[in-house]
């Protein structure tokens, strides 16, 4: 995770790819991670499928259902990651809803996630107020619990959350669920600027990012971009090459 701060200092933008673990079969997980790291992404979020993903739009929900149909569980994903026989060169972040973690056991989850080579955890339905359920265990394993902030996060909470932020801050750029969008709202730039001013760690924009036009719009106001639905869909349709221009648009330094 230190690497993310260094990248920021060097003035480079981060590209974080979200994948749905086990979509297409658990054996695809390693392949996809290898492909993405070779392609120059900065970090990878490994999504765990859940039966009731209320923060997700249809693309990720469908991917989750395909994975569930193949019997994918949190445990299987962590096992698979522990068996990787290639070098993982980028930070891996586990993204999961809270219930599978509670069922697995919060302490056991952080231990196994650490063994699986993860650097952090994102739990979209675990608000800052309830982080005690997970954070103490995460700390023991030196995993960072990534916080989300949104367009609706009120000022006082925003400051509270950012004060404690570690790794990176996930700035949600839509008032809504995940999924591709044509346009982002006008006020997003001002929002990410504000977050960036207050945040001690890099700020990455996510939710709805799927096009170069989004990247161009926000480039100067964030430290990186998180792309989910577009990647998940491209892997599913076996046309991940289509995403290469988007990855390049973020990661290849622009001379401004």
């Amino acid at each position: 995770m230190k690497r993310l701060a260094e990248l920021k200092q060097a003035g480079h933008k981060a590209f974080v790819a979200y994948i749905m673990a086990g979509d297409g079969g658990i054996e695809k997980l390693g392949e996809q991670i290898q492909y993405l790291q070779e392609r120059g992404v900065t970090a990878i979020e490994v999504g765990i499928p859940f039966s009731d993903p209320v923060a997700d739009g249809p693309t990720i929900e469908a991917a989750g259902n395909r994975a569930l149909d193949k019997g994918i569980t949190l445990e299987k994903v962590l096992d698979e990651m522990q068996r990787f026989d290639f070098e993982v060169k980028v930070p891996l972040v586990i993204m999961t809803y809270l219930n599978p973690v509670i069922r697995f056991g919060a302490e056991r989850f952080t231990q196994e996630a650490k063994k699986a080579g993860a650097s952090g955890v994102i739990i979209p339905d675990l608000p800052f107020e309830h982080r005690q359920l997970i954070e103490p265990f995460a700390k023991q394993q030196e995993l960072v619990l990534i916080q989300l902030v949104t367009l609706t996060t009120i000022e006082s909470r925003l400051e509270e959350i950012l004060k404690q932020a570690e790794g990176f801050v996930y700035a949600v750029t839509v008032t809504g669920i995940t999924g591709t969008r044509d346009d982002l709202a006008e006020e997003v730039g001002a929002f990410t600027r504000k977050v960036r001013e207050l945040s001690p760690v890099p700020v990455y924009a996510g939710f709805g990012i799927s096009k170069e036009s989004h990247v161009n719009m926000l480039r100067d106001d964030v430290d990186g971009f998180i792309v989910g639905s577009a990647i998940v869909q491209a892997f599913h349709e076996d046309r991940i090459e289509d995403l290469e221009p988007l990855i390049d648009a973020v990661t290849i330094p622009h001379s401004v």
Partner: protein
Amino acid sequence: MTRVKICGLMEEQHVKAASQADAIGFVFAPSKRRVSVERAQELSRLANNDMQRIGVFVNASYEEIDEAVKTVPLTMVQLHGDEPDELIRRIDVPVIQAFSIRSPDDVEKLNNSIADYILVDAPGTDYRGGSGHVFDWSLLENVNLDHSRLILAGGLNKDNVQAAISQTTPFMVDVSSGVETAGRKDEVKIQQFILQAKGDSMERTQEKTIDPVGFFGRYGGQFVPETLMKAVKELEAAYEDAKNDDEFQKEYHHYLKEYVGREQPLTFAARMTEAWGGPKIYLKREDLNHTGAHKVNNAIGQALLAQRMGKRKIVAETGAGQHGVATATICALFDLDCVVFMGEEDIKRQQLNVFRMKLLGARVESVTKGSGTLKDAVNEALRYWVTNVEDTHYLIGSALGPHPFPTMVRDFQSVIGKETKRQILEKEGRLPDAIVACVGGGSNAIGMFHPFVEDASVRLIGAEAAGAGVDTDRHAATLTKGSEGVLHGAMMKILQDDAGQVQEAHSISAGLDYPGIGPEHAHLADNGRVTYEAITDDEALASVIEMSRLEGIIPALETAHAIAEAKKQAQSMTADEVLVICVSGRGDKDMATYAEKLEGLS
């Protein structure tokens, strides 16, 4: 919290009836309510340890008073004569000095008393221990008086005590003739008086057990995406504010009365009582509400709150369609925009309700994901809310979801239990021995149970859906088979697999077809205050026929689960016991299912 004293007790059963009061009084002065010290001692043994025992005297000697204090023993002494200050000083226990109030001048005297408490009463006529006449409480307003030592007496009864308390905020209210019938204490009136005087504050003390805010034991919380946190927090603050606003409460009760048609009867079910051969059966008639079920109680409350928050768009989920219909109805009434998410499967089995919603001007969105039932409808409603949160209120239909929903829905539904408590005291002079309600998400049950949770003598039983049987994989028996988990914004009990994936529920009844149970129920199940039993589809259907033919009341399928469980409970109860069933809704919406399942019925 204002304390309650029941004064002039002479008989055992009246001391017992006063068990929820804070103080009981024995009159040792000449009066028709006079008791001997020995009699007071006997009666006093029946009261709880923490009950204050107060002796009432008129110009008695120190020795007389002291003997009573030691023998009964008394924890306080109340003086109604012209006792000198020296006497008051000598008494070991706290002293209450009584004054008759005629005019503002009399109020002045109160402040000069050296007693620990001052009791104000109307001028006596028959004897000096209190007249039973009402005095003008307004005399106590706007005068310099320490209300924390004020005890209010004189003409109080169940109908005026609330007003008296809010006008004078006394330390304690004292009643004697106001809880009598024909010159003798009356158990029902005693309990009604305590209920009226303490109703709200009893609820408040119960709430203290929710700690930290928004949790019932380990269940509850606000497990929602960050985008919703602002809305959830705003709602929490707005509800807190509305709850304590008399105007809001007045408006809510206005609509319950004028629009919903409350209060609903507590009907004695003579033929069911006879057929089951056990306890007396009473039916709380939520089926008589406008729109046909209890759901409307909550829909009105939340719709008023949404408007108070400046939100004129409503999103809701529905299972059986009852909540959807209630919401669509209220949105028509208040001219609010309404979208209802409903599972595809439920749309099929509750067609009539779908049409009703559309007729009322709501948009009904079919949810094809998952099992196409209530869980999936909640998911879609939550997603819609995340996307439209700035101008939309999520009007959740059961005691589920992130805080404050479970508390708020329970409060709006508590009108069921509050009415029932008042009605059963009127009809039977005592609390019921058992109450049965069906549980889907848990709103009608918690609304019925909540006012009785502190009454240890009342057994509370929830009936959940066993579908094809709890040992099959087609049921919705969350409390029988579920485990702790987070779903739809709260830690609660859910049906899930080993990996923490939420399972699909199954029940013939769309309103019980949900794999979770609200956090307060989860807590009440853990601490054993409420027991939960599972009823199969077939048992429920049999109860539909039985109740229809015995009482001429066709129940909703959900309600039928409560009937079936009540019948089981009745087997082990006796004729001198009382059993209340919450009839959460009527069966009109289920007529297609009944026609199909009960084909060939003769």
